């Protein structure tokens, strides 16, 4: 869809967030933040708990509106289209893969877990589903461990395997954007490193929003990093600058270096 933009292209931002404000009842979660996400980059989003990182992801795939009592102002544009004007919200969600902090194996077989989204999207042909399941499980580095027992329950896998299953499922509807919300919180360090390798590979195919509680993870993976604190975007810049000795904002320096948070 895009013109021949390379990785550093800034011609058409995939996501444009402008003056986004979110409130839960009368409690403000995001107080007007603006930034762009470029094609095929990994954007790291760091910040302490309760600073609005998860809320931001929920706005992007419009699952926030499933929670009652929330108000959203400002706009989020996906490929230049304001997402609040999109009628086919399910189609929008399919363009965005979402991985939540705690792995969720749906109470279905491993195969059915990955085939869930293609099936609800109308794909019925067994051969096509087989292909998707194998491709996604391979992309999520889980195929070799489960290829002989695809009919066992997804809920019976270990935590780390379930999180990779969740990633495989998020890839099953071929999203253009992959959002990960603190995916490593319930995963052992070895699995975390394997998933990080997966993300590093995926960056050539899609744009990745990586919300992380581990600042070092952002440092390892992200092209650019955003620092969010109490609903404000404190700073967004290349990862080198954010993690250097002189980012623009003192709070960024303090957080990145573990002085608070």
């Amino acid at each position, binding site marked *: 869809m895009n013109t021949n933009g390379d990785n550093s292209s800034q011609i058409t931002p995939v996501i444009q967030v402008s003056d986004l404000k979110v409130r839960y009842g009368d409690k403000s979660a995001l107080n007007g933040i603006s930034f762009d996400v470029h094609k095929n980059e990994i954007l790291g989003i760091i910040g302490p708990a309760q600073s609005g990182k998860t809320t931001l992801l929920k706005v992007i795939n419009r699952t926030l509106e499933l929670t009652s009592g929330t108000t959203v102002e400002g706009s989020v544009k996906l490929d230049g289209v304001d997402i609040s004007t999109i009628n086919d919200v399910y*189609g929008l969600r399919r363009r965005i893969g979402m991985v939540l902090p705690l792995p969720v194996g*749906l*109470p279905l077989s491993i195969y059915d877990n990955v085939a869930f989204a293609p099936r609800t*999207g109308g794909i019925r042909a067994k051969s096509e589903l087989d292909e998707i399941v194998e491709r996604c499980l391979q992309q999520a580095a889980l195929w070799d461990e489960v290829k002989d027992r695809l009919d066992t329950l997804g*809920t019976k896998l270990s935590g780390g395997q379930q999180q990779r299953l969740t990633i495989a499922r998020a890839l099953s509807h071929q999203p253009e954007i992959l959002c990960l919300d603190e995916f490593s919180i319930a995963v052992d360090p070895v699995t975390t490193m394997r998933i990080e390798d997966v993300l590093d590979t995926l960056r050539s195919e899609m744009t990745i929003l990586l919300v992380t509680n581990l600042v070092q993870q952002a440092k390892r993976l992200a092209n650019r990093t955003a620092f969010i604190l109490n609903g404000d975007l404190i700073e967004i810049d290349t990862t080198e600058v954010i993690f250097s000795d002189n980012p623009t904002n003192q709070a960024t320096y303090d957080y990145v270096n573990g002085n608070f948070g």
Partner: protein
Amino acid sequence: MNTDTQAMFTETAISRQKRHIENVMRIFLLVITSMMIIPLLLIIGYLLYKALPVLSLEFLFTNPKDNMRAGGLWAPFLGTIYLVVVSLLVSAPIGVFAAVYLNEYARENWFTRITNLAVVNLAGVPSIVHALFGVGAFVLFAGLGESILAASLTLAIMTLPVIIASTTEALKAVPMSFREACWNLGATRWQTIRRIVLPNSISGILTGVILQVSRAAGETAPIMFTGAVFYKAIAEGDIFAYNITEQCMALSLHLFTISTQVPDVTEGIPYGTAIVLVGTVLLVNAASIVLRVYLRTRKKW
């Protein structure tokens, strides 16, 4: 070191007292629990003992005879089955779908809150009030007359709120994270409900519905004025002997009349009627337990 360790494990006054209270409470709770079982066993044992002379298959399959002083239970037994089946055919689908709406679709607003409040209050309405409502709404206003249909609808109104409540509980037991995962995959609410929520709550839903069988079978007040009749002879052994636009006999009302209204009833018959009523309900409950165990083995998390 050694003496320190010993001191660490020597019983102090506080830990002795804690242990003492623990034992007392355990025995107290055990006694209370046993007190629940004893009356049940006594009731069923006494009924069985008294009913034994009349109990037989023939007792179940013949009509009451001789002004209900002798004979069997066929007409009231079949009547109760009709009432229970028709009322659940009405209340189970409505109750389950209403609960799915309230739990899965309805937004948190004043309308939902009022509906939930109404459901809770409806569950607490005494059955005689349901009976009078049934007379007004179904027998008179809807023009159904005193009939199996009117009585069943009255029972359905009575069981509906409890079915809604138990279904809601079963739906709430399915973790929210499953739903969120499905929504994130672009599934609609209905796709989520059909593929994930219902398959994993069906055992709880069915249990709630089946438990209402015992209420529908046991209640006398709601059917007394709406469709149950003092005496009616029907074809013996024909399960289609009743027409739902006509009146029927029912075990609960039959037990009441032969115990209090009819003189000189053969001694075993009221006890036999009670045993059949209790037995039918226990049988259905047992079936629900078997079903629940079977469905739970398929539960997947």
